[in-house]
């Protein structure tokens, strides 16, 4: 590492490694004020990154540990805190137990598999990040504890799965995509973080860094241009710029620093390319950053966009520097979309709904039973005391004001009645000429269902298959609003890749089961598969493939309904239904209400 405390603001090639080092260093510099979301699965790259970061954080933290890890499936009481029962019973007065969040005060909270953390816990963490304090009202304990947290979230979801909750992602300023970096395994040796002493020095200087007034306006403009709506992101750029200035050893935020900060924070959040009439290359190559970062080259290649009138010529040309800088960090899949045009708003990734796990402390209290409280089960205090009461004299209780003598067998815990939510997955055959009609049915049925569903917290998802593959049009949601939006434009036509549709639906079902929901599969098709998983239009191969696939799905035991949409109810759909072990219902005429009635009947059957 350089002896001088200056991290190069213009990253040497490859830019991605440089940005990675920067992001990690900045996070370590001010974890509570930044936050880091690391996307990518297990692997040597992630291991390398995490161990480097751990080393740095350990050096900076008082207790020598890099972070507090939040295990998946942690109960609310362990996370938030509450009553320490053992201590309370022996001390004879309420003793609060600090939860993991309170313990991580001043340190970093590590959230592995953040995409699986239940929504309520995510909300709690977001609340702590926003207010800097934890509000507790549980189990006889009411307190407000000041908690400053730095959050390091690890997102291991695949591209087509729903990832980290958008609410949390919004609050984490730095998003790093590891798969993008891992393609450059050769250059990984350049990866080095700032040293602990550099960070400590930077921390002291950070508060006195001067940020010019006009920066806010420029960053807003750039954020607008790239379709980043979040105001947190805009504020985040300013905060990161401050940190970057402190790290680079300068006193004020200048254009270069602002450009780098914009690139780091806004780049990964971009949803479109700026629609300006300049000569920005539609698909920037990775090496392009070398030209863009230096102001000279930049002003030559740019023409002034017309619509910057109100902010003046100076502002617009320096804003272009920012635009250029951010453009180099826009994720590849957004670029690959369409340069210069607005992409349809990327489907918001829904966090997984809270799992109604056994004994996670949710649901209606329904009586008590004997047992020791663990895993979020709650003590039924009075029952316990009542059970212990008759034995007091025998156990030698000293007097009416002496501590109550309680034994393990006296403990009573609250029994809860938990209802697991249902996820209804619609797999719709969108092939051929009847596609539009079928999709309309599905849409009608979904809206019907959702209207009923919200009472019981059920969810709905939609997979459509046509042409050569299947597409998840509506990821699991219980929001009527989102369903309406996603369903408003449904495409149709092409061959019937039934197998692909089943695979996609099966995957959703597996996810749902893992998250604690009960999946129900509704298949709307005529059963006539003619496209294989590989995309070939070979009817016989498709049929054989289907047979193997259905056997596997039937083994999973997901409750299924096959709605036969062929004009004359034929053997194809019936056979499919038998193979899947499903209920069969012929429905040649579009009737959303009938479909939803069928589904509700099935759900009642399951619940019984």
């Amino acid at each position, binding site marked *: 590492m350089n002896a001088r405390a200056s991290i190069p603001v213009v990253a040497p090639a490859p830019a991605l490694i440089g940005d990675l080092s920067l992001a990690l260093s900045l996070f370590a510099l001010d974890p509570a004020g930044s936050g880091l979301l690391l996307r990518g699965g297990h692997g040597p790259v992630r291991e390398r990154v995490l161990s480097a970061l751990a080393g740095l954080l350990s050096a900076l933290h008082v207790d020598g540990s890099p972070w507090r890890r939040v295990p998946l499936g942690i109960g609310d009481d362990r996370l938030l805190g509450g009553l320490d029962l053992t201590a309370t019973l022996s001390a004879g007065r309420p003793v609060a137990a600090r939860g993991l969040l309170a313990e991580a005060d001043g340190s970093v909270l590590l959230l592995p598999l953040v995409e699986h953390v239940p929504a309520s816990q995510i909300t709690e963490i977001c*609340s702590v990040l926003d207010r800097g304090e934890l509000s507790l009202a549980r189990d*006889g304990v009411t307190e407000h504890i000041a908690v400053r947290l730095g959050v390091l979230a690890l997102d291991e979801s695949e591209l087509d799965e729903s990832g980290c909750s958008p609410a949390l992602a919004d609050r984490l300023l730095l998003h790093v995509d590891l798969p993008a970096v891992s393609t450059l395994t050769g250059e990984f040796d350049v990866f080095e973080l700032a040293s602990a002493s550099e960070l400590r020095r930077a921390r002291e200087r950070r508060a006195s860094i001067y940020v010019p007034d006009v920066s806010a306006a420029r960053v807003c403009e750039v954020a607008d241009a790239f379709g980043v709506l979040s*105001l947190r992101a805009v504020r985040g750029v300013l905060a990161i710029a401050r940190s970057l200035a402190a790290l680079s050893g300068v006193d004020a935020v200048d254009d270069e620093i602002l450009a780098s900060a914009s690139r780091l924070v806004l780049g990964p959040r971009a949803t479109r390319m700026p629609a300006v009439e300049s000569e920005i290359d539609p698909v920037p190559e990775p090496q392009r950053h070398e030209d863009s970062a230096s102001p000279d080259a930049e002003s030559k290649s740019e023409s002034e966009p017309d619509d910057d009138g109100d902010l003046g010529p100076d502002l617009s040309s320096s804003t272009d520097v920012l635009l250029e800088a951010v453009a180099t960090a826009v994720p590849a899949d957004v670029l690959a979309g369409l340069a210069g045009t607005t992409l349809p708003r990327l489907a918001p990734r829904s966090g997984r709904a809270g799992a109604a796990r056994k004994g996670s402390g949710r649901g209606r209290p329904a009586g008590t039973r004997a047992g020791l409280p663990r895993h979020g089960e709650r003590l039924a205090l*009075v029952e316990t*005391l009542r059970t212990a009461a008759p034995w007091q004299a025998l156990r030698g209780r000293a007097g009416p004001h002496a*501590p109550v003598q309680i034994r393990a067998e006296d403990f009573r815990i609250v029994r809860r009645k938990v209802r697991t939510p249902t996820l209804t997955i619609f797999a719709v055959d969108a092939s051929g000429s009847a596609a539009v009609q079928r999709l309309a049915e599905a849409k009608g049925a979904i809206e019907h269902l959702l209207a009923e569903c*919200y009472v019981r917290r059920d969810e709905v998802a939609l997979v459509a298959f046509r042409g050569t593959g299947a597409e998840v049009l509506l990821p699991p949601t219980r*929001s009527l609003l*989102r369903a309406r939006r996603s369903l408003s434009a449904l495409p149709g036509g092409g061959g019937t890749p039934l197998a692909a549709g089943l695979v996609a639906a099966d995957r959703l079902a597996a996810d749902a089961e893992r998250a604690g929901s009960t999946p129900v599969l509704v298949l709307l098709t005529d059963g006539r598969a003619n496209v294989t998983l590989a995309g070939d239009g070979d009817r016989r191969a498709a049929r054989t493939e289907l047979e193997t696939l259905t056997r596997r799905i039937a083994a999973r035991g997901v409750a299924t309904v096959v709605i036969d949409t062929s004009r004359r109810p034929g053997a194809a759909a019936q056979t499919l239904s038998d193979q899947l072990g499903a209920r069969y219902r012929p429905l040649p005429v579009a009737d959303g209400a009938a479909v939803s009635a069928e589904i509700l009947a099935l759900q009642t059957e399951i619940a019984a």
Partner: protein
Amino acid sequence: MKRALLIAAVDPRIGGVMVFGDRGTGKSTAVRGLADLLPQEQVVRDCPYRRRADEPAEDCPHCSTRSGTRVRLRKETVPVVDLPLGATEDRVVGALDIERALPAAEKSFEPGVLARAHRGFLYVDEINLLEDHLVDLLLDVAASSVNVVEREGLSIRHAARFVLIGSGNPEEGELRPQLLDRFGLAVDVATPKGLTDRVEVVKRRDAFEQDPSAFVKRFARRTGALRRSIARARTALDEVEVPDAVLERAAALCLELGTDGLRGELTLLRAARASSALDGASIVSEETLAAIASLALRHRLRRDPLDESGSEVRVRRALEKVLIA
């Protein structure tokens, strides 16, 4: 959103505000800021149920056991109480006081969040994520204005008249219609799209973080003015007149929109009066009615599957029809 909160502060009988909106739109900030604007009132000192001197002592679990002792008063601000998301039922309604129960097996009631929110505001963030049984509980108490506790061998009842303010992101889940109906007003908040607005928000937030006390001082005068206008509006509320013509318009509007029952109209009129009082007017005008119609009615519209347009549009359409007539 701010208007809705002010109206709810002026006339608590309107029944609370539901704030729908995307994340990062300042919902929680606005509600918590409301606390600063609320007037002070005299409550009985040491009473955990916030009994006011004019409320009967026999109904208060704390004061009824202390009859005979002289009542001392204290000035307190109307509270805005947060309901934490991870709250358990015992903290919300109150429960057996463990501190007394354990050593001495003594039965004594420890009041919960609902007692603290009496005659104040109860703020539930992310209300669409709230546990079902807690939602049921809140509905019950909000409807009856009394919190009845029958658990763990205790039998307590106390007054709990609070204004419920909820916020949430509709994309994350629908709100049950029974819950939605309990709210007098509903607002939709979106991230400001205009560049100048966005810049101003960022600047102000930054200024606050750099020096909170200076920021508060900067806006102290406006805050004070707002506080006074709420207090004035509260006293002036009863004097505000509603001309027959406006009454007819309101009824016509509700008929046009097909709102269920009469609650829509009643809320609409109450909100119109509160809004006029805030503006310092003594008569409700049609303009005021039109301005707050959406707030009072947008969440009471019957769901029409054939009509894809949002509720805002439907209210406006109905307004145009009714008002030009």
